[in-house]
C-alpha cells in the first residue's frame, strides 16, 4: 500500500520542517520523510546555534537576503514557537590594521545586505563587554543572537504536525520515479506517492536531486568539530566572539549557548558526502580548536570539557570548488518539485524565509487554499530550571511531578520528561527526549538521570526493553533483563 500525499518533503531538518510548517498554513496533505528517528539529528542539530546577522554573504545572494530576513523576524518567531533565544549581539575581533580593513569591508557588505546594528567597538569598550578577549577592536553586530537549534527545529516540526503535517521517521528514500503526474517514492519503511516532492535532504540533497532526474549538483561536506564547556564558563562569555573572517570561513569561535554553556569551534575539513556521514571527532581537531580559540579567548581548560561533537555542512561548489549560493529551484526538468541544494549556514537563521520562498515557487503552479484552522503558536514545555522560586513553587503545587528532579545538573523534572516523552512527533529515543528537555546534557552527561529516563520512556510508551533506542536505528541500549 502506498501512502498518498499532495506534497512530500524529503528531509525533516530545520529547512524541511520550516517548509512543512509554512505549508501547514494551507489545505494540503503534506508528509515529511525523515531517515532518522528525530528531526535534528544531522546538520540542524550540529552547529553553533547562532542567529546570524547577514553581513558575511555576498550582496545579492539568497544567503544574504534570507539571512537578514530571518534575523529581523526572529524575536517574533521565537515567541510564537516557544524557542529559547537571546539577541546577544556578536563580536568579530581583530588587532592589526589589515584586520581592521577587512572588518570595514565586512561592515560595508553587511550594510548593503541590510544587516542591522553593525558598529565598531574599540579596545576599552570591547574589554568591558568581554574582559578576557584578546584583541584591540571589534566589529559588533548587535542583531546577531543565539538560539537552541534543537528546540527550534523541533518547534517547527511540532507546529507543523499539530497543524496536520504527517512525519514519517526511519523513512530513508531509496528511489523516486514519476508516472502519470505522480511521484512514487520508495523508502526503507514502505512506498509513498505524491504530486509534489520537495528536496530538503540536507547532506543527501545531491542524491535526492539525482533521483528526481535533476542535474547532478556537486555537493561537498564541510565538517566542523566542537567542544562543549561546562556552565561555569558561561558567565565569562556574554556573546559570541569570532576572529576576523576570511572569504570562505568564519574561523574558530567561541559561542555562549542559551543554556549557559560555551561551545568552542568549528574548524572546517572538507569531506565527501558519498558515504554515511562520519561524525567522529579526532584528537588533533580537538587540540587545534582549544589552541586556536584560546588565542581569542584564553578561558579554555580541559577540566571544563563536558562533550564534543561534529557537524557537517552541505556546500554546493562549482567545478573549481568555489562555494555557491543556496540553490532553490522549481526546475521544469522535474515537474512539480522544489529542489534545495547546499543548505548550509546560514540556513538555520534563514529557514523560514527559505520556506516561504519555497511556498511561493509552489504557489506559482498550484492553487493553495488557506487552512483556517492553522495555529501558528506552539506551546513549549514549561521548564522548572531558571524560573523564580515563586513560579517553581506554583508549578509543583499544580503538578507534583514538577517536584521530582530527574536530571540534577540541568534541573529537569519528571513533569517535563513525561511531557517530552509524549511529544507530538512521537519520538521516543533517549537523545530525542534529551534534546527536548536537556536531561543528560549537563556536566554529568546522564550519570544520574539516564537510568531514570530509560525507565520512564519504557513505562510511558509501554515499550519492550530491547526496543529502546539511544538515537539511531540499531542503537538499542539493552540486550535483556538481568533477572527474568
Amino acid at each position: 500500500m502506498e501512502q498518498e500525499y499532495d506534497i512530500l518533503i524529503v528531509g525533516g531538518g530545520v529547512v524541511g520542517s520550516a517548509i512543512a510548517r509554512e505549508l501547514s498554513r494551507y489545505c494540503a496533505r503534506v508528509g515529511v520523510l525523515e531517515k532518522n528517528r528525530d528531526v535534528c539529528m544531522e546538520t540542524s542539530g550540529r552547529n553553533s546555534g547562532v542567529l546570524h546577522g547577514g553581513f558575511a554573504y555576498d550582496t545579492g545572494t539568497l544567503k544574504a537576503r534570507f539571512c537578514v530576513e530571518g534575523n529581523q523576524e526572529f524575536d517574533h518567531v521565537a515567541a510564537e514557537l516557544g524557542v529559547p533565544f537571546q539577541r546577544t549581539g556578536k563580536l568579530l575581533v581583530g588587532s592589526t590594521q589589515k584586520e581592521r580593513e577587512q572588518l570595514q569591508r565586512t561592515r560595508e557588505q553587511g550594510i548593503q545586505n541590510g544587516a542591522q546594528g553593525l558598529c565598531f567597538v574599540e579596545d576599552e569598550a570591547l574589554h568591558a563587554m568581554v574582559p578576557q578577549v584578546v584583541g584591540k577592536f571589534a566589529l559588533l553586530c548587535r542583531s546577531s543572537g543565539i538560539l537552541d537549534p534543537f528546540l527550534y527545529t523541533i518547534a517547527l516540526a511540532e507546529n507543523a504536525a499539530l497543524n496536520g503535517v504527517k512525519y514519517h521517521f526511519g523513512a530513508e528514500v531509496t528511489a523516486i520515479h514519476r508516472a502519470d503526474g505522480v511521484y512514487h517514492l520508495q523508502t526503507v519503511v514502505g512506498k509513498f506517492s505524491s504530486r509534489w516532492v520537495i528536496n530538503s535532504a540536507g547532506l543527501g540533497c545531491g542524491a535526492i536531486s539525482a533521483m528526481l532526474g535533476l542535474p547532478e549538483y556537486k555537493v561537498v561536506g564541510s565538517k566542523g568539530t566542537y567542544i562543549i564547556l561546562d556552565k561555569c564558563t558561561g558567565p565569562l562569555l556574554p556573546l559570541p566572539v569570532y576572529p576576523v573572517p576570511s572569504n570562505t570561513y568564519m574561523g574558530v569561535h567561541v559561542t555562549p549557548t542559551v543554556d549557559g554553556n560555551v561551545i568552542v569551534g568549528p574548524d572546517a575539513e572538507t569531506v565527501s558526502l558519498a558515504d554515511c556521514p562520519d561524525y567522529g571527532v579526532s584528537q588533533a581537531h580537538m587540540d587545534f580548536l582549544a589552541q586556536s580559540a584560546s588565542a581569542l579567548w584564553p578561558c579554555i581548560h580541559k577540566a571544563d570539557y563536558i562533550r564534543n561533537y561534529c557537524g557537517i555542512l552541505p556546500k554546493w561548489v562549482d567545478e573549481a570548488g568555489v562555494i555557491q549560493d543556496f540553490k532553490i529551484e522549481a526546475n521544469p526538468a522535474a515537474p512539480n518539485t522544489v529542489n534545495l541544494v547546499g543548505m548550509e549556514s546560514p540556513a538555520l537563521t534563514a529557514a523560514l524565509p527559505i520556506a516561504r520562498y519555497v511556498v511561493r515557487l509552489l504557489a506559482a503552479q498550484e492553487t493553495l487554499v488557506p487552512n483556517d484552522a492553522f495555529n501558528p503558536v506552539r506551546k513549549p514545555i514549561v521548564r522548572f530550571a531558571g524560573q523564580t522560586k515563586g513560579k517553581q513553587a506554583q508549578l509543583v503545587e499544580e503538578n507534583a511531578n514538577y517536584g521530582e528532579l530527574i536530571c540534577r545538573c540541568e534541573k529537569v523534572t519528571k513533569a517535563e520528561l513525561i511531557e517530552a516523552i509524549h511529544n507530538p512527533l512521537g519520538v521516543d529515543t533517549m537523545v530525542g527526549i534529551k534534546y527536548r528537555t536537556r536531561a543528560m546534557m549537563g556536566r554529568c552527561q546522564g550519570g544520574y538521570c539516564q537510568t531514570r529516563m530509560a525507565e520512564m520512556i519504557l513505562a510511558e510508551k509501554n515499550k519492550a526493553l530491547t526496543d529502546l533506542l539511544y538515537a539511531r536505528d540499531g542503537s538499542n541500549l539493552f540486550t535483556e533483563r538481568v533477572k527474568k
Partner: protein
Amino acid sequence: MKCIEKEVVIIGGGPAGLAAGIALYRSGITDVLIVEREDTLGGILRQCIHDGFGMERFGETLSGPEYAQRFVDEAMQLGVPYLTNTTVLEVSGDKQITTVSPAGMRCYQAKAIVFAMGCRERTRGALGIPGERPAGVFTAGVAQSYINLNNKMMAKEVVILGSGDIGMIMARRLTLEGAHVNAVFETQPYPSGLPRNLQQCLNDYQIPLYLSHTVTAIHGDSRLTGVTVSRVDEAFQVIPDTEQRYPCDTLILSVGLIPENELSVACGVLLDSRTKGAFVDENYQTELPGTFAAGNVLQVHDLVDFVSQEAERLATGVEQYITSGSLPQCPIFIRAQSKISHTIPQSVSGTRDVVLSLRVRRPHSNCTITVRQNGRVIASKKMKKALPAEMIQFTVPQKNMEKCGDWQVGVE
C-alpha cells in the same frame, strides 16, 4: 516562603550523611534533618551488591546494601529525622536551604550544614576521548545501576577503560551476567584500584589488565562496534603505531570520581584543586563557618568504612559548633610535599589529636610517611607498600604538636 529552623541540615543520605546524622543524634543534637534526593536512604551503596564492605567498621564483610542497612536501621530506631525524594536546589551563604519534592518547595534555616553529597563519575566528554558517539559507552556506575538496580543488561562484548575499583568490580559483574570482558586498560603504569579487587575481579576471572594503555578512538554510528586502544608513554602521550582495534558493543569507563560540590561552591565554599573537595580544618569545617563536609564530597575514598568514621569525627565538630557557637581557630596549615597528592584536613588547631588522611602520588615500597613540624617528626607511619589506590590514615597525637608552625607531610 517561610523558613523552617533546624539546628543541622545534612545534605545527602548516603553513608556519610547517615553516619553524621546518627552520631549527632546520639550526641544530643536531635534537631537534625537528613535530605535525600532518592526515594530510599543509602546512597551509592544501594547498587554495590558485591561484598567487602565493613571489615574496618564491623569486623565482617558485608554487601553495600547490608552495610547501608545497618545505618538506616540505626537511624530509624533512634528516629533521626529525614526526607527522601527531596532535592536541595540551593544553599545560601547564610545557611538557608531550598528544597523541592512532590510535596512542594521548602526553605530551611540551619545553624550548621553538613555537605554529604558524595561524588559523580568522570565521563567520556570530560576525558575528551576521540571518536564517534554511539550507544554502548557507559560509566561503570551507570552500568552498575542498570544491572543491579534497574534489571537491565546492556552488554555482550565488553572493553573496560580504567582500573578503578568500580571498573574492576563491573568486569566481574558483567562476566557473571554472561558478558565477555575482553580486557581492562589503564593509562597509569600501575592499577588504580585496590589490590584485592585486582585479584578477585580480574585475575580470578582471567580478565587481562593492560597498564599504560588508553582508548584512542570509539567506533560505531549507532551501537558501539569497537574501540581502538593505544599504548602511552610515561607522560601519558600516545605512542604512534601501537593502535589495536578491539571489536565490542560496550565500553565501560572507570576513569575517576569527582566530588559533587555544585551546592557548596554556589554558597561560597572554597575547594582544594587537588581533592576537588572543600578545604577543611580538623573539625571538617569548610572555610564558610558552620558548614562541614565529609565522605566522597570531601575526598574520594576507597573504603566506605573510612567514610563513616570521617562523618562521625565531623559530627563531633558540628556538635561542638552547635553547643558553643564556634570552633577553635585552626591557623596551622598542613603542607603536602611532592610525593603526597593531598591531605585531609588541610589545617589544624594544634590543641587535639588529629586523624590525618592522605594519598601518595605514586606507589612506594618500604617507606615512611612522616609529618614534620618545625623540622621535627611529630608523627609517622611505616608502610611496606604505599599505593595511590589506598587512602592512608593515622593519628597525629596532640602531645607532639607545637602551637605554631605548619606541618610538612612527606614520604621518606
